[in-house]
């Protein structure tokens, strides 16, 4: 590893470290009991204090979201890799579930956006 390589590594490490508080700040403003669900058909908000099971229409099928104990997780998805399912339960503001093939994202901490009709 040359000296210049170390500088490159240090820059990337610094970026990763700097991104941590930035991402936390970006999400921290929201409320912990609301999840913003963004799908190809629109945006809506879920209350995390009301348990339930929701199907979100994605690009290539549906993503099933389960709300329980103040957390949300993707229980099932029609995507090939199931990374969204592997992301597990989310409850802190600023954390997120992302399913790229379905273009569905869930972000904890909502503002006051008007709900749209995505969730059935």
């Amino acid at each position, binding site marked *: *590893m*040359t*000296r*210049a*390589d170390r*500088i*490159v*590594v240090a820059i*990337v*490490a610094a*970026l*990763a*470290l700097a*991104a*941590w508080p930035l*991402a936390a700040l*970006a*999400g921290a403003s929201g409320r912990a009991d609301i999840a*913003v669900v*963004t799908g190809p058909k629109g*945006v809506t908000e879920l209350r995390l204090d009301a348990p339930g099971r929701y199907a979100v229409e994605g*690009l*290539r099928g549906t993503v099933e979201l389960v709300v329980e104990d103040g957390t949300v997780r993707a229980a099932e998805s029609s995507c090939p*890799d199931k*990374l*969204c399912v*592997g*992301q*597990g339960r989310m409850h802190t503001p*600023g*954390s*997120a*579930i*992302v*399913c*790229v*093939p379905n*273009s*569905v*994202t*869930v*972000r904890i901490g909502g503002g006051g956006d008007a709900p749209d009709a995505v969730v059935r």
Partner: protein
Amino acid sequence: MRRTPSYADARTLAIGAALVALGAVLGLVESAIVPPLPVPGVRLGLANLAVVLALAWLGPRRALEVSALRVLLVALAAGTLGGPGFAMALSGALAAWAAMAALARTVPGVSPLGWSVAGAASHVLAQLVVASVLSGSVAPLLLSPLSLALALLCGLAVGYSARLLLSRPPLALWARSGMGWKDGWLRDSSHAPALPVTPCSQGVPTRSRTPRS
């Protein structure tokens, strides 16, 4: 002795094609094994190995061709062409190439290890930005700290692999002096001793050492 490679140089073409094949195979293997990481788009980045090698051996222009072609091939074979995953892969590949080519051109002290780390970082960043734009949500960007940290590790791993391959070219054919894009850096760098052209025991013909015009 420096030989200026012409664009239609057969050897360049052959090595470039081999690297496209390498990148495509590594990319396919990767798309089959999804690491159990909770971040979309994070892979080991093995396919970037082919691009790093292309950059070192053939220069930025060929590296771009290798990168774009292998992304296209993997998308065709995996059936993801045109989907959001393809947009992420392509943007990531282009960003990685841009970062690596810029480093290779402008900062002389950076070795392929540094290229690889910078490439991995720009790859994940571009992917997350594209995912954010496509999904219309900032949620993917919230994953960037974890992605960057993983990219650093994967970039280092791929960079070390590239360094190994660069210091021990797989075919005696490739080991000719003046092979490096920046003529002779293979010989100058500390990790790669002068490379004699040794006949390959498997019967690969060694080329004549008399330089062509």
